[in-house]
């Protein structure tokens, strides 16, 4: 079943039309989302204008976690089914996820200084998010650390799967332990505790960030496919010269 999905040509064909569409739609969502969240949404009753940082912070955090889940799943596909395309997808996701996790840490820090009174504390939520960032970095480093590429792919995939354990810790850290970070406002049993006027721009940003990451991942995978083809061609030419 997965062999059908893992064919590089089929991947290229099916994403060719999707690619420009994704770019336009995601940019529309982000532009409208940014406009709503920066200019056309209310201040918070306690935080004032600082609440607007949340419209970048929360989507980044969600994407950082969700992309890590995707990274781990595609690493499982690579290790179990040995599809080379799965490895290309993993290594395409990693830098984007790393970017979103550092963005989460930076925006959170910018919000923390005026609201909490500190840039950083070592509470469970902040620390587990930092660890997520390190897992992304570890994946990228390990992936490029070996002479034989396949060794890097394998060990980085193992690391990605180990890091999977960190995801529920990030999500539930605010419920399991006392943390300085507030509990979840959106995904909770008794419904969101965030006003609709704020939830709507936030949803725009989340959808926009999500689609834009998908767009970036597709471009990354395509570039890597072309790279691979070039390498194969060069190898062929060199062989001919020798012969």
């Amino acid at each position: 079943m997965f062999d059908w999905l893992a064919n590089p040509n089929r991947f290229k064909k099916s994403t060719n039309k999707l690619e420009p569409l994704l770019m336009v739609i995601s940019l529309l969502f982000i532009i409208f989302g940014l406009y709503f969240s920066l200019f056309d949404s209310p201040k918070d009753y306690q935080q004032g204008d600082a609440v607007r940082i949340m419209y970048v912070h929360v989507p980044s955090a969600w994407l950082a976690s969700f992309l890590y889940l995707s990274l781990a799943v595609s690493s499982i596909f690579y290790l179990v089914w040995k599809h080379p395309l799965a490895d290309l997808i993993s290594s395409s996701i990693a830098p984007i996820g790393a970017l979103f996790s550092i963005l989460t840490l930076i925006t959170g820090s910018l919000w923390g200084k005026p609201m909490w009174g500190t840039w950083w504390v070592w509470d469970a939520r902040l620390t587990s998010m930092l660890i997520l960032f390190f897992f992304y970095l570890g994946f990228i480093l390990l992936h490029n650390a070996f002479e034989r590429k396949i060794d890097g792919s394998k060990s980085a995939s193992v690391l990605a799967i180990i890091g999977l354990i960190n995801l529920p810790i990030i999500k539930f850290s605010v419920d399991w332990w006392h943390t300085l970070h507030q509990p979840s406002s959106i995904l909770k049993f008794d419904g969101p505790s965030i006003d609709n006027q704020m939830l709507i721009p936030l949803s725009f940003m989340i959808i926009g960030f999500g689609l834009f990451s998908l767009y970036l991942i597709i471009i990354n995978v395509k570039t890597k496919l072309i790279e691979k083809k070039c390498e194969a061609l060069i190898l062929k030419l060199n062989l001919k010269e020798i012969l």
Partner: protein
Amino acid sequence: MNPKYKRLIILILILSILGLATKLVLMALKENIIYFYTPNELKKKYGNVKNIDNKIRIGGLVLEDSVIIDKNTSIFEITDKKDVIKVFFKGQLPDLFREGQGIVAEGILKDNKLIASQVLAKHDENYMPPEVADALIKNGVWKGEEKK
């Protein structure tokens, strides 16, 4: 057996063992992972000890009508609605500091009072425009932290 499924089963096994190990470690480290104690938890943990020289963090709500601020020095009480701890603090309080607000104070315990070196405001998970907050209070359905 198909080698693919063998690999998958090994992977699932390793992951579940790793997950279990992590859970045990986290349970064992619970005391170190929590960022603060509430006054009641502190009492349970240390009993009637009046002086703690290591830095500890106490979290809870600022007790109504307990705040005295004189220039740079402030005295107030933190409560978890069971126990109360008095806090002395010299320095700049965070903007969100007010009566009824959740806060975390870090310092040493001296004579059952916390000599704080840092006071942080804790924000709750409620996000709403000021008008909505006012309306909720007016209608008596306010669920968040007490607001003054």
